[in-house]
């Protein structure tokens, strides 16, 4: 029982990271109807920025905040420069463009920082908590994710910009008619997604070690989480991410060899898409033909 609970908690910590990245994916999907295959590599690149800053003797949390700001601006620039021209292009074009971004980020990181594993400091001490049920590190990851979620919720619920962003995502034409600068809102959406991804990257890097291919597995779990929760639902993405984190940990511990963890994600994705394509909380997409 103790071991089971341990696994559940460490699954929750991993799930919190997946949930963050899934949330980033959902934000972009809602804003621009795009599945952003480059999300993981964007997060990885942000993490390298944080690593550079920490290595330059900056205090961890200062580096954290600066990284978030840089990522935010970077995300907005990507939307403006790379995504805007293909906004109304066929899906294939959009997929190829985000894949192109994935390759560029991956290669640039490899170019600048090389492909060797780097150690990334954790801001949280590694001590057992609640009778060794979980570690302070897991607790810290979960806490950071929770704070971020609450902040995002407040932003979208209580600020004018948040409202405008929701309007722009839901109905761009009407939003534009009521005077909202939809283009700017989409760029903001990408900025937020990039910053959320950066949080996920920084949280996961102490566990996985930092290298340019660090995020491919994490992105896969995040996709699974987003699909499970429903790719149109932010709440769903968070819950889906947590479920995937716990499932991954339990299945890896009790059912099959942990070398097949990624295959579990593949199977989960197929099951969700076949039996419940809109996920747990998503709304069915109705299209006029």
């Amino acid at each position, binding site marked *: 029982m103790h071991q089971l609970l341990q696994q559940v908690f460490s699954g929750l910590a991993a799930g919190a990271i997946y949930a963050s990245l899934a949330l980033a994916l959902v934000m972009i999907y809602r804003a621009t109807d*795009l*599945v952003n*295959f480059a999300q993981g590599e964007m997060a990885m690149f942000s993490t390298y920025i944080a690593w550079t800053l920490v290595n330059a003797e900056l205090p961890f949390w200062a580096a954290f905040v600066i990284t978030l700001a840089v990522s935010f601006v970077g995300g907005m620039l990507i939307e403006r420069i*790379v995504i805007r*021209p*293909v906004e109304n*292009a066929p*899906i*294939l*074009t*959009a*997929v*190829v*463009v985000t*894949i*192109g*971004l*994935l*390759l*560029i*980020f*991956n*290669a*640039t*990181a*490899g*170019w600048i920082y*090389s*492909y060797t594993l780097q150690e990334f400091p954790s801001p949280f001490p590694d001590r057992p908590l609640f009778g060794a049920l979980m570690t302070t590190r897991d607790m810290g990851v979960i806490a950071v994710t929770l704070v971020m979620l609450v902040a995002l919720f407040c932003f979208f619920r209580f600020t004018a910009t948040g409202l405008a962003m929701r309007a722009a995502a839901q109905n761009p034409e009407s939003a534009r008619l009521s005077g909202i600068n939809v283009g700017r809102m989409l760029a903001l959406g990408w900025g937020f997604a990039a910053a959320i991804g950066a949080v996920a990257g920084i949280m996961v890097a102490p566990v996985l070690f930092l290298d*340019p291919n660090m995020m*491919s*597995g994490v992105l*896969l779990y995040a*996709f*699974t989480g987003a*699909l499970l929760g429903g790719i149109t639902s932010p709440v769903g993405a968070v819950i889906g991410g947590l479920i995937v984190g716990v499932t991954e940990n339990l299945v890896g511990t009790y059912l099959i*060899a942990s*070398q*097949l*963890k*990624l*295959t579990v*994600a*593949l199977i989960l*994705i*197929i099951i969700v*898409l*076949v039996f419940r*394509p809109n996920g747990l909380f998503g709304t069915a997409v109705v299209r006029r*033909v």
Partner: protein
Amino acid sequence: MAESLRVGATAKLGMKAEAAASTAVWRWLGCAVLIAVAIVLPFTLSNYHVFQLTQVMIYAVAVLGLNILTGYNGQISLGHGGFFAAGAYTAAILMHRYGVPYWATLPPAALVCFMLGVLFGLPALRFEGPYLALVTLAMAVAMPQLLKYFDTWTGGQQGITLVKPLPPPGFGIDRDRWLYFFVLVVLLVAMRLAANVLNGRTGRAFVAIRDHPIAAAAMGINTARYKTLAFGISTLFTGVAGALAAIVIGFVAPESFTLFLSLSFLVGSAVGGIATIGGAIVGGFFIEFVPNFANDISDAAPWAIYGLAMLLFMYVMPRGVVGTMGPWLTHAMQEFRSARHAAK
């Protein structure tokens, strides 16, 4: 008046038919010249360059498979490296464990990959656009792990080392050149088969489904059947390419079949022209030679160039080199001919 009009119209029609016929002649001639060059070329190059050209052709077969699915049928696959791996391992296991001669491994590899493709295509019927891309991406990411896991068959991390096949006795050419011609024949057969499928009823059904699935269904096309078929045919080609790679390189290991292999197929496809047959060859050249030139700059440079090429082609030349140049060439030739006609 009416009479002369009709004569004029007939003359014009005749000219069009003549032009079409002569375009076809030119096309055949062009193909013949290209094939002649392909036959002579290996005798003028070093062994290493011959090996590289063999690789180009293998990539071309793989990209051709992807073009059938993604270009003609509109189903996006980011996981064709997985089917390439399946073909490679089928060939390797048959050769290594059962002593099957290398040329005889192609049909089983084709069959295995066709069936895998159909199996994968069935659930894929429910996934549209980005979702299929996602599922196939998941497959590509999971592939190396799977290959390592079934190590009794795949040799695990170490992979399988094969003996490179020798040319049949009395041929008077060395191994690299023999493999070159072996792959060349497979490529030509593959392109011919692809052209037959795509220019016929099946190909038109593929394109109709891509352009407007509902209209296609309304016209009596069995959408599910043709989409699954497109998947199977596509993976068949890519699987054969994988088998060729195993034979020519003489080695298979899980780490050769990562997500990046699948993505490089997509790059080749986008560069050559995603809904073309000839574009696959341009794509093959791109995949093979860009890393060669770029590796001097940095390990990572090839991938950076792949990524940039993807963006650039999508913005500037979304139909790829062949998709853009092909119609342009035909048009230029017709202009030239009608100008000459007018001069007469």
